[in-house]
């Protein structure tokens, strides 16, 4: 079947391109590792363990049964919080984007909530929900919801009204116009917001766990801090970063690429790959 073969070839080409683009990312990360190594040699083992020791500690930690469970626990909290925040925030932001009154009313509220430091939410959530997983999830929602709300609001508000008029002239109803004209434009705002939101979700979940001593990676981090085990602190930090990067680059970015093939069509080669 030539048609399916062609689509397979296209998928393979896409995967190749996607993996190839990882090289550029790896180059940047290795530069960072070099700077880290230099700082380690300047300040010594106690202040900043070197990258290799950190990776060895991480590998050691990975063999222990507790770590997998901790990652799963934190991941579940971050993901639950993210999905709820992205779902509610996106829906509310999209509706608000269509109404000037809602836009004017909600924008200062969102700006205000975005200005509240997550640590305050954590303290409040600990008081309201106790030191359980619930407070971590609640904090993630409060921290990530305004981000996706603002993204959706901005996306709908900046839709191309000329294209909307064109679709209306050809007899497209409101639902079709949302699907054909607003949504593809909105998606680029949403993916940017969701990328920020999922990173925030991991960070805030770990923070809430650490302060509430409610298990997960945050709990492990609290233990390492109590023992003054700096390599372990660094290893856990790297682990959280890897988790956040992984959920962005392995889940969100491929979805984005698939949804926005039209955008890459007009880009120069250096931006594309």
């Amino acid at each position, binding site marked *: 079947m030539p048609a399916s073969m062609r689509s397979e070839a296209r998928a393979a080409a896409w995967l190749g391109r996607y993996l190839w683009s990882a090289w550029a990312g790896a180059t940047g990360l290795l530069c960072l590792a070099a700077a880290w190594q230099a700082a380690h040699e300047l300040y010594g083992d106690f202040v900043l363990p070197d990258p290799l020791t950190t990776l060895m500690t991480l590998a050691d930690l990975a063999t222990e049964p507790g770590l997998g469970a901790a990652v799963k626990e934190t991941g579940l909290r971050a993901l639950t919080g993210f999905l709820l925040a992205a779902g509610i925030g996106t829906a509310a932001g999209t509706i608000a984007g269509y109404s000037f009154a809602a836009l004017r009313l909600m924008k200062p509220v969102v700006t205000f909530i975005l200005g509240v430091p997550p640590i305050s939410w954590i303290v409040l959530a600990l008081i309201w929900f106790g030191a359980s997983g619930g407070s971590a999830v609640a904090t993630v929602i409060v921290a990530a919801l305004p981000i996706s709300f603002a993204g959706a609001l901005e996306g709908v508000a900046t839709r191309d009204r*000329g*294209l909307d*008029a*064109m*679709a*209306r*002239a*050809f*007899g*497209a109803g409101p639902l*079709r116009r949302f699907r*054909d*004209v607003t949504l*593809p434009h909105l998606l680029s705002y949403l993916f940017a917001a969701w990328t920020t939101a999922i990173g925030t979700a991991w960070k805030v979940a770990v923070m809430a766990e650490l302060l509430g001593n409610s298990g997960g990676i945050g709990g492990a981090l609290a233990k390492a801090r109590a023992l003054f085990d700096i390599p372990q602190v660094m290893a856990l930090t790297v682990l959280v970063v890897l988790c956040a990067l992984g959920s962005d680059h392995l889940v969100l970015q491929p979805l984005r690429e698939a949804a*926005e093939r*039209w*955008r890459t*069509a*007009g880009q120069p080669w250096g931006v594309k790959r």
Partner: protein
Amino acid sequence: MKLRLENIGHAFLGRTVIEGMNLAFAAGEIVALVGPSGCGKTTLMQIAAGLVVPLRGRVHRAYRRHAIVFQEPRLLPWLTARDNIAYGLACAGTPRRHRREIAAARAREVGLEADDLGKFPAELSGGMRQRAAVARALAVAPDVVFLDEPFSAVDVGLRRMMQDHLAQAAAREGFCALFVTHDLGEAARIADRLVVLSARRRGIVDLRAVPGRPGARDERFVFDLVAAWSREEAFAELLDGAGRLQ
């Protein structure tokens, strides 16, 4: 009469643009709406097309379908040229296969190659995008086509080709075209009838038939016609740039 505007009046934020305008358009005729910038010709077209609701007056429509070609191509960037040309058909509920065939045929008419149909608008040149916009409008087999200075940004050769194509299509398919332009030469080439608007007097200054058949007039004739018009009082405001600065 396919389309009739009755006593239309409109204002933006209290500033009157159009007042007491009466116009009627018959099947198969191309009417050019000329006038200086700010005289309300685009507003009038948007009212006729139903994109703007007029403050006063009524629009009577006795047709099934209309289409618009805007000043900019207004193609959806996330659809290929083929899907863009077929967009009006998709809105009308034409089955996918059928609308692809129509889109391909209409693309051929305006000189777009089969290769170009799979491309996104970002990969097409400005002229190709505008041609796709014309193909999109004609693909729905409209009874009335509204064109808002559609060829002001395309090169001379392409402009002539598109003007001729439009005139031939109107004659062949019998649609009525309302053509907004500020280019007298363009109006002289392809219009059956001319409506001259004024910004100062907020209304129609002159209505006249253009001799000859649209698209069949030769260059010499068009040139002489524009030269003759430019000496007339009716076109003075359109051609007088300095007077509008005061």
